[in-house]
């Protein structure tokens, strides 16, 4: 597959994630959109890793080029998991205090 396709696709997903973050007001959905962005990045990384791997293979059949890209994805997932646990804890804490997860209500702090 031409790499551009993957890039376009990932960017599209990424942008949808951004749009979601910008438009939704439910903190959980916003957070989900962030996860969407991360997944777009993951896919892109895998695609690139395969691209570099493919290029490297042309010169050196035993090349493992591109493995770091996939490992990076792995670490992203690790981090995402950690973030989710903390993030959901924060959202729950917020909900306990305000009984709302609307981020537009978060405006005690301003100016």
């Amino acid at each position: 597959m031409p790499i551009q396709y993957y890039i376009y696709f990932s960017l599209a997903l990424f942008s949808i994630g951004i749009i979601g973050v910008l438009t939704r007001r439910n903190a959980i959905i916003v957070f989900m959109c962030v996860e969407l962005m991360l997944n777009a990045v993951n896919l892109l990384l895998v695609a690139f890793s395969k691209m570099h791997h493919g290029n490297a293979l042309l010169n050196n059949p035993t090349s493992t080029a591109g493995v770091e890209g996939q490992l990076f994805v792995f670490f992203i997932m690790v981090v995402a998991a950690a973030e989710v646990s903390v993030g959901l804890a924060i959202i729950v804490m917020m909900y306990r205090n305000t009984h709302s997860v609307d981020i537009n209500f978060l405006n005690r702090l301003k100016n």
Partner: protein
Amino acid sequence: MDTIQILFFSLSALALFSAIMVLVSKNPVHSVLWLVAVFFAISGHYILLNAQFLAIVNLIVYAGAIMVLFLFVIMLMNLNADAEPRKNWMMKLAGVVSGGCFLMVMVSLVRQATELSGKAALMKTGEIGLIKNLGKALFSDFVIPFEISSVLFLSAMVGAVVIGKKD
């Protein structure tokens, strides 16, 4: 158009559609479910790219663990469609427009990127996505970050306890 292409486009279409549905669904539970659909589609992509390990992990960690956690929280809070407050059209429009701008700029950029011409992702073949290879790399070259991510988890754990625990 060969099978891979068909699969690629249909998976992409599914992913994009599901992603948009994540945004537009009023009910948070639906959003979660659409997101799971996205993850499945992406896992499909991984399989296409022969990144089997990641495909599995994606399903287990994301679609399985994380999304369940989300769902769990949403259900805990008993959020439903009515919980979503009144819309702010201006804000939404601005969000869509700026997100669109971002996409447009990036896409036009990639279109100009002549260095990418002729480059392609290796489909179906390639060993690096296999568990064996990844594991080898992970425990040799990437052992430091692997160990260090334990600190991350530790802090997340402590954090979840500190924040989540009622006192």
